[in-house]
């Protein structure tokens, strides 16, 4: 192989690192997108037997969002293997114990189960906050676009903006809006 050809091959099969900010994102919706980058569906050279996937770094996994009643209704099952070893944990309790676990399970369960699944999962790096180690951060070359816009919290609006916001009625003076 010529020198140019060798370098072309290195560049073609080089692994990239992608950053994904999970703030206010639904992990179940994110899973197909993350899977695409982990398995290399986004490259035209993709083949199921070729290990051409990339690394994905997910940060702020503590800030994920579930729709509606999902935090209470969604239950994660675990069995120790012994008799009466089954346990069912609601999503909000699991998220308290390990803020990275729900995102990891969402991606893991979305992928089809085969011998490559655990290998592919090794390339997913999840961090509960934005403190990503420097040795990982220096590899990152791309940021995955968030799937849904991050809503602006009320605290971030200035007092002037809130006052100027159009309103239909003025609340009476003795009306309690909130306790704090």
């Amino acid at each position: 192989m010529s020198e140019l050809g060798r370098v072309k091959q290195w560049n073609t099969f080089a692994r990239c690192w992608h950053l994904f900010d999970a703030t206010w994102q639904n992990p179940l919706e994110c899973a197909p997108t993350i899977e695409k980058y982990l398995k290399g569906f986004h490259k035209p050279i993709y083949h199921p037997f070729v290990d051409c996937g990339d690394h994905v770094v997910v940060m702020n996994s503590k800030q994920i969002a579930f729709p509606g009643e999902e935090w209470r209704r969604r239950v994660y099952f675990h069995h120790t293997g012994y008799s009466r070893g089954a346990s069912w944990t609601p999503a909000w309790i699991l998220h308290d114990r390990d803020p990275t676990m729900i995102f990891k399970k969402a991606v893991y369960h979305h992928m089809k189960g085969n011998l490559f699944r655990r290998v592919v999962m090794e390339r997913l790096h999840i961090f509960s906050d934005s403190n990503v180690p420097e040795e990982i951060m220096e590899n990152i070359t791309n940021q995955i676009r968030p799937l849904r816009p991050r809503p602006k919290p009320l605290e971030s609006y200035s007092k002037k903006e809130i006052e100027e916001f159009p309103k239909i009625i003025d609340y009476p003076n003795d009306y309690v809006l909130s306790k704090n």
Partner: protein
Amino acid sequence: MVFTTAMMMVRSRGPDEFWRKRKIFKIAAHFSGRRRNCYSIAIKAVHRALQFATIGRTIRKNDMISLWNTRISAGCEEHGINIHNFKDSLSRCDIQLNKKVLADLAIWEPSSFKALSDLAKSVSIDYNLPGADKYEKPTHVVTRGLLLK
């Protein structure tokens, strides 16, 4: 032994036993264990293998089609165009490239594929296909609405 009628021919055990079994053993040559050497086991394994081969001929085609689709959509994504708009625009221009050729172009001829995607973008803007309002019109593709039919 001479068979006088066709009826007797059907009842006969066919060709010589050695050659009849050899046909099966040749198919079973790459099997493991006794499935390769014992005729009564080999014939069952060969029967199963040939059934799988029949099914596999259909599955292989489907697998290749899904692989080509994955590769084409990856190529389209690199240039920021939706795969449905891409295929729709190409067929509207009478560009009759099949999935295999498009996938090969995406891998081996990236600039040709980019040219196709630019053409597809401008055509989908001309036809006002769904989602085409997000595309930027490529400057080097001059259609002047002539591709409209």
